[in-house]
């Protein structure tokens, strides 16, 4: 991490912090750093920062560092932390909000494959109305350059008749596409 001057970092980060708190409805000042979230987090072991550290960094005004961190992309949203938090902080929702804001602001994504997976998944939903597994695999594998991802399990899937090579096109596709259109309009309006 680069060197930061704490008192100026805190002051400079105030507008960004209030945006995060406003959008996530999570007041990071309430956290007293007990670490219960970190103890129960299933992905902490593979992350640069634990959920507790993410909150501490926000308290200290290190917003840039948080936006670039792995944790906000690794969080699986299992809810262990929010279930056990003595201050009732909805940390998974905070991570979601941080991920969304970091992307909007153009920060480099620390876990590119997670981002590519999410994007590929939603593309298939936007165009067909439902998840299209074969399409997701093709999109994800080519965009992430993991050409063999899932290929160890794909033959079994086809053999058991579980995955179809074709998409399931629903009749309400236009309505679903409209939801995505509205989302983009709202993002543009900001």
């Amino acid at each position, binding site marked *: 991490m680069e060197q930061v001057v704490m008192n100026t970092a805190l002051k400079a980060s105030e507008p960004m912090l209030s945006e995060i708190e406003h959008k996530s409805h999570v007041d990071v000042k309430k956290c007293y750093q007990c670490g219960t979230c970190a103890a129960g987090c299933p992905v902490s072991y593979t992350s640069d920062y634990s959920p507790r550290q993410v909150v501490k960094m926000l308290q200290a005004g290190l917003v840039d560092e948080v936006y670039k961190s792995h944790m906000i992309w690794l969080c699986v949203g*299992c809810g262990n932390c929010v279930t056990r938090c003595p201050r009732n902080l909805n940390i998974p929702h905070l991570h979601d909000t941080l991920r969304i804001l970091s992307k909007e602001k153009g920060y480099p994504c620390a876990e590119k494959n997670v981002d590519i997976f999410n994007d590929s998944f939603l593309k298939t939903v936007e165009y067909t109305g439902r998840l299209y597994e074969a399409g997701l695999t093709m999109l994800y594998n080519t965009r992430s350059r993991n050409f063999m991802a899932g290929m160890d399990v794909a033959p079994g899937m086809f053999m058991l008749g579980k995955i179809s090579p074709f998409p399931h096109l629903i009749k309400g596709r236009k309505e679903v596409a409209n939801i995505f259109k509205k989302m983009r309009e709202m993002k543009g309006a900001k």
Partner: protein
Amino acid sequence: MKIAYYPGCSLESTGIEYHLSNKLVAKKLGVELWEIPNWNCCGASPAHQSDLFLPNALNARNLAIAEEEGLDVLAPCAACYNRMLAAVEAVNTDEDMREKINEAIGRNYRGTNTAINMVQFLHDIIGIEKITAQIQKKLSGLKVACYYGCLLVKPPALTKFDNPENPQSMDRIVDALGAETIVWPYKTECCGGGLAISKTEVILKLTNEIFSMAVASGADCLVTACPMCQLNLELRQKATEKEYNVKYNMPVFEITELVGLSFGFSPKELGINKHFVNNDAFLKEKKLA
């Protein structure tokens, strides 16, 4: 009794056996499952990780179609269930969000119905007594670790269902079927589902912990109420065994598969022959096939 049914994408593909079992079990219990016509994907993790509006709008469309019929929605997938509840909550607490959602979906969703998970449906709505009345075959000899996973019970402020750390309702159902439920501490630990493709190594670690604890606690199989958990635990089991140099070969069932077996349906009718962990020998040994 009639209830709206939202299979979700998994139940039409990787979790087809859960779909088949749900339909057979519901019919036997005298429940009409009204499948939401032209339902769309709930957006799963990718939607809520990408936008604050998108997941709520995607779920509100499905909920609105059921609301027009005056029905609550049975969502057998724990992830769909959780996302639906979040949409119901958003519509009821955020006026601005509700207006934008209704504009986008072209419907007037008022948030008067809710989502119900499969265990809740069997335990709270149908009730153990009515289930017991249909039993034709006791599942004695099975040692079952009930694996609720995370999204069925967490976060409790959203799900308001059972206990988030040591839930009991699925155990009570399995007990009633005549199987033995084991006491174990990983009932609601996460299997890592959302990272299955983009960070598979995380899944191997988490599922290894779940299986090793289940074995240490004396279980010979797992039962879930979520197609994501079931898929993750079976599909990656071989890779987990290889990575950690262990042998589990442990079948993972859906709750309605076990209920269906005890109701006298054959494994084939229930789709149990479509599992990634072959369970022929297991079911024969337990005299269930």
